[in-house]
């Protein structure tokens, strides 16, 4: 089975304390720690496990700049066979639709049975996978938390739905799935693993390599535009308890007593 996993390099929410820049319209991007989007990592692990069972290859692809190569290399250290970087100045400022259009061109240049994305990334949009599927006229399922490869070009896929329930579906291949966290336990990647793939050539494809009209994607081709970043004003927020830990605990215990939090 040939599997393509679409991944993204994102600011790591666990490693950064985000600040706005001096203009207050974007993140202060100096010194941000980036990593592979958490959901994508589960998708790559799932792809590797499927190929381990039924044979085939896992290719990881990303739309990004030169620095995005590091996330491809990291996923190859996990066990992905190939990496492809889709990079062009014309891709900058792409909305989800443009990203999906760029990925579509890559999908069509290969012969993939299964395409996976993470269920969402740093923007919380959860859109690229579903858009890509519709562009390719392939069936789609989002928030997938279980995959079973069946005979006859079909899979059985579980989707996470509300209340901790699971919706089971039978889907014809080729298809696109967006993967939810918790579907597996992504393997650890050590320094040695990264070193092993440090020299592997990762092909870069531009808009013209992919046959993409430059004005159809990126800033020019995107109808959805992000204007700024700001900190939402949600009223008063919490009453912050301050002082030494002992003082804080004393205040907290008084409050808990009055709210029925201590039996």
């Amino acid at each position: 089975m040939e599997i393509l996993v679409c991944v993204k390099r994102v600011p790591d929410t666990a490693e950064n304390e985000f600040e706005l820049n001096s203009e207050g319209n974007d993140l202060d991007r100096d010194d941000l720690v980036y990593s592979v989007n958490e959901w994508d990592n589960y998708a790559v692990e799932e792809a590797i496990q499927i190929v381990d069972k039924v044979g085939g290859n896992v290719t990881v692809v990303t739309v990004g700049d030169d620095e995005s190569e590091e996330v491809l290399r990291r996923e190859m250290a996990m066990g992905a066979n190939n990496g492809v970087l889709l990079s062009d100045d014309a891709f900058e400022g792409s909305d989800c639709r443009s990203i999906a259009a760029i990925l579509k061109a890559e999908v069509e240049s290969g012969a993939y049975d299964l395409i996976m994305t993470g269920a969402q990334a740093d923007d919380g949009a959860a859109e690229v996978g579903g858009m890509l599927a519709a562009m390719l006229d392939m069936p789609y399922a989002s928030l997938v938390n279980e995959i079973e490869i069946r005979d006859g070009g079909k899979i059985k896929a579980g989707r996470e739905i509300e209340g901790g329930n699971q919706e089971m579906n039978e889907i014809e291949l080729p298809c696109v799935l967006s993967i939810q966290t918790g579907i597996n336990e992504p393997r650890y990647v050590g320094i040695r693993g990264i070193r092993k793939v440090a020299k592997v050539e990762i092909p870069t494809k531009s808009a013209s390599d992919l046959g993409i009209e430059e004005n159809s994607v990126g800033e020019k081709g995107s109808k959805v535009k992000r204007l700024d970043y700001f900190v939402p004003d949600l009223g008063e927020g919490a009453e912050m308890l301050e002082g030494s830990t002992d003082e804080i605990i004393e205040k907290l215990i008084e409050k808990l007593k009055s709210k029925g939090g201590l039996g």
Partner: protein
Amino acid sequence: MARIFAYIPHKEGAAEDVAYEYITAAAKIDPNAQVTAIVTGHGDALDKAAGEMTAYFKEVIKIGGEELAYPNAEVIRKALVNILPADAVFMGPHNTFGMDLAPGLSVKLDSPSVSDVVDIEGMDGSTLKVVREVLGGQFSTHVTCDAANGAVITIRPGAFEPAESGSAGGEVVDKSGDAGDLTAKRRFLEVLEAEIGEVDITKSDVLVSVGRGIEEEENIEIAQELAEAMGAVVSCSRPIVDAHWLEKSRQVGTSGQTVKPKVYMAMGISGSFQHMGGIKGKPFIVAVNKNPKAPIFQVADVGIVEDILEFMPELAEKVKEL
């Protein structure tokens, strides 16, 4: 004037809360907008949901058929593409169904798409301006889209006030005949209900709930000690279940359990909307997090900036001394 179509999700004919929230959201796009509800389904459940919506919407489109008995987004999308006008502003819910439906629908309608909208600034000419959140709710952004040829937006359930009065006196229009070919390459099989764990967190008045801030599996014990001292039960956020440190039945959130405690101790939980969506009944929320910018501090009653691994044992000691 925008023509707005709101997709009404329902369970066995009972509309989900978001149905009433669309009305507020639509008015923010255009107070004079003509808003049409769309209900899909089969049999009595469909008629019940459609009938209920006539109190809130002037026009209610129902699309029925056996294929639509279970809300399979791949099937519903095909029907919607055949029924929606080209310039429709479509509103859906940003939940597990909306995430399945909306992105592909926007491609098929060739309309721009904006998901998980938490507020709407309005429509200026054909430019729709909305607010959404990024980086797990740490920041908000203003987003515009050119809705000259329609748009697909999904709104976050609970983000807009529900409409109260229901006296629209609307009519149901049956468009089942226009739905077209509803065969799909994805077939719904069944829903597997969540397993009930050894501890029922929905029954506890006090929850000590742990998130990523717990850092290591071994540290769960620290939370258990605090919970014991307080007469509480340990619950958790999604990453703890993903890591298999606690069972799924202890997860609070839209994809886990809905809880209604008196006191909710959010320990090292950032406070994503999916997590907060599982907390009902306005409990007293205490948030302890070492990141002073954690979104949880905006919704908690009391906030403490400390490392939970040091704070919880000390609190447990003091509670035991009482």
